[in-house]
């Protein structure tokens, strides 16, 4: 199979980019794989790319290089094909519209995979007849604005498949988006085995990692650790990551007098060696679209104490077996979960061993297999030959019409609501 990924920027650093390469590198062992990047802002990708994966760009924004296209007049005109309600709309323009459309009209691939809503829309609308159209949603449906949902509802029925990172989110798309004929599957993010030996569980450290953003609720973790210290002053906490909450969290640490116990470590790349220094991982988010850090920590042999927030943690952690789920927003419960593992070396050891085994299901080889069978099933559903192709296009047409009808109704609703509030 020839599989072609379409991504915003394959040359940057970020969860979607890393996930895409993890998947592409593994699929390339059996298939012909390319990663098409809308933008290129630097010479080479940061992440390791298998030599069999071809990476190319559509628009070059490397300043000071001969290929630089940021001065083009088209680059300054707003996008029309890229959906206006998408978070990155302001980064798209008439030039990206044209380049993406040209690419999709001529792509030789058997499978086209979009990696964000706006690019899924491009694929749904503009891909030539033939290739499977697969949209990936790395964020969750409820994180999309009403306007974006309305736009997607009108277009997504033209996809063959939509993937989400959790079962919970797949269920949300199935029930709220009305996608007739579109297969909606949960596909967890692949997480490779770490480049270091697993943690040996002797270090008296709790480790957390992620952006220092309000949604991660590190304030709760720090307050919980105040309770941990009261009972186990020999244990300490490291929080890796950078972000806007840093000063606020720093002030909280000082206010609680936790400066000998809680450390804001800053960003770390790669993160695996940092997990391996700890014995327990903590995630206290109010929301996780997947929960990548939970899997990363487990692959390093750390049991994770995590809040049972939407959407990921409950699907990753087997509560009481390879980690501990605690109620969202509950400082006492978070402290209780940590102390449960801190105070019981045997239990911690058992959970650590279970975490290593259970997290193998996120290995890129396993996730790639699931994608392969998805692509194979879809190909079988609408095989080459006049009848099959006819059926395929019929489902698309019907879906588009239904989706369109819903979109019209939604637009009417929005207008009505606006009318009332005005």
């Amino acid at each position, binding site marked *: 199979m020839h599989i072609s990924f379409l991504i915003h920027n394959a040359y*940057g650093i970020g969860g979607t980019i890393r996930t895409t390469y993890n998947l592409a590198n593994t699929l390339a062992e059996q298939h012909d794989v390319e990663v098409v990047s809308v933008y290129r802002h630097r010479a080479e990708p940061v992440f390791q790319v298998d030599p069999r994966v071809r990476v190319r760009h559509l628009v070059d924004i490397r300043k000071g290089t001969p290929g630089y296209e940021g001065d083009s007049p088209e680059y300054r005109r707003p996008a029309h094909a890229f959906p206006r309600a998408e978070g990155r709309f*302001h980064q798209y323009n008439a030039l990206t519209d044209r380049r993406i459309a040209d690419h999709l009209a001529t792509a030789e691939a058997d499978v086209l995979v979009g990696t964000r809503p706006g690019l899924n829309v491009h694929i749904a609308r503009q891909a030539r007849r033939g290739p499977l159209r697969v949209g990936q949603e790395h964020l969750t449906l409820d994180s999309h604005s009403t306007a974006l949902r309305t736009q997607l509802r009108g277009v997504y029925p033209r996809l063959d498949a939509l993937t989400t990172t959790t079962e919970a989110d797949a269920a949300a798309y199935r029930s709220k988006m009305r996608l007739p004929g579109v297969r909606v599957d949960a596909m967890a993010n692949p997480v490779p085995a770490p480049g270091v030996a697993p943690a040996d569980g002797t270090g008296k450290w709790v480790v957390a990692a992620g952006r220092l953003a309000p949604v991660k609720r590190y304030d709760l973790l720090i307050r919980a650790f105040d309770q941990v210290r009261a009972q186990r002053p020999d244990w300490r906490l490291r929080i890796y990551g950078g972000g806007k909450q840093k000063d606020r969290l720093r002030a909280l640490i000082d206010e609680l007098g936790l400066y000998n116990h809680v450390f804001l470590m800053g960003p770390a790349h790669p993160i695996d060696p940092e997990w391996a220094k700890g014995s327990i991982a903590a995630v206290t988010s109010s929301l996780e679209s997947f929960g990548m850090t939970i899997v990363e920590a487990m692959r390093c042999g750390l049991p994770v104490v995590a809040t049972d927030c939407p959407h990921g943690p409950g699907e990753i952690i087997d509560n009481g077996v390879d980690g501990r789920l605690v109620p969202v927003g509950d400082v006492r419960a978070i402290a209780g979960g940590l102390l449960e593992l801190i105070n019981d070396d045997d239990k911690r050891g058992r959970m650590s061993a279970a975490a290593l085994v259970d997290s193998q299901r996120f290995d890129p080889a396993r996730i790639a297999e699931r994608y392969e069978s998805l692509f194979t099933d879809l190909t079988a559903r609408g095989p080459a030959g006049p009848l099959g192709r006819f059926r395929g296009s019929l489902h698309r047409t019907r879906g588009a019409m239904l989706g369109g009808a819903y979109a019209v109704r939604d637009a009417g609703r929005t207008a009505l609501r606006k009318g009332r509030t005005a």
Partner: protein
Amino acid sequence: MTALLPPPLPDEVHDRVPVEPRADCVADSAGGLTFDLADLGRPGAAYLLLRLRERQPHGAGHTETRLPLTPAADGRLRAVLPSSVQLAEGRWDVYADHGDAAPRRLAPGVNDLRSLVDRMPSGTRPHIAVRIPYATKHGNLTVRAWHRAPHAEAGELLIDGAGLTVRGRLLGAPLTPAGYAELRARTPEGDSPGQAARRVELGGSGGEFGLTVGYAELADAPGIWDLWLLPQGAQGPQARVARLLDDVADKKPIFTYPAVRTGPVAVGPYYTRDNDLSLRVTEAG
């Protein structure tokens, strides 16, 4: 809507791009480092070159160390920097030298430094050697080295309204009844001599030490004060109080402590760029 859109700003325009090749580095608890890198298949002898970044103008002494790169089991090249090879204090930039061209600066791969976390040297040696590999802000691999004899390792810092209590370990020189600690005013080089050192009582036993700096005593003395131990009194060896025995190359942004308002000044401890412990006394506005 204006017709002109702001140009797209990919989120990561400012990230650092590491240059190849990369070296993975594993630390052992004795202070030794093992470097592994891809075998580029060049003929001839290959070396891992450590080059001391010059800070001092006199620049005397040994400023390069060359370690043979030998084939390892997995088709990679390996160099070992044992703790017995002495490295002067400072930042040592790491290169691969194949002898056929200019040495190539190495980028960090995976640094496995778990054995450095909460390091507890035996204390049987008269000195401590610390080497922590880290990624520079330009994405290169550098080894931060310290060599101290004796060494005063700071542990927990306890801050209350009245002052700072430091507890730690003394390595390489036993504490005698004559021992005391000292705060030394830092003066820019070439300046007229600053304020006299302030003596601080030093306690402890069995390799542990403890001292308390009363902030009120510094209320009249804005500036930077460096903390030293003289464990055997004025005639004996001196140890700068520092925090070196872990995996964190740069303590300053991570180990931070609140300042306390004391009369007309605010006083607080901090770690210097060299991970030494100092007090900053600033006039409160």
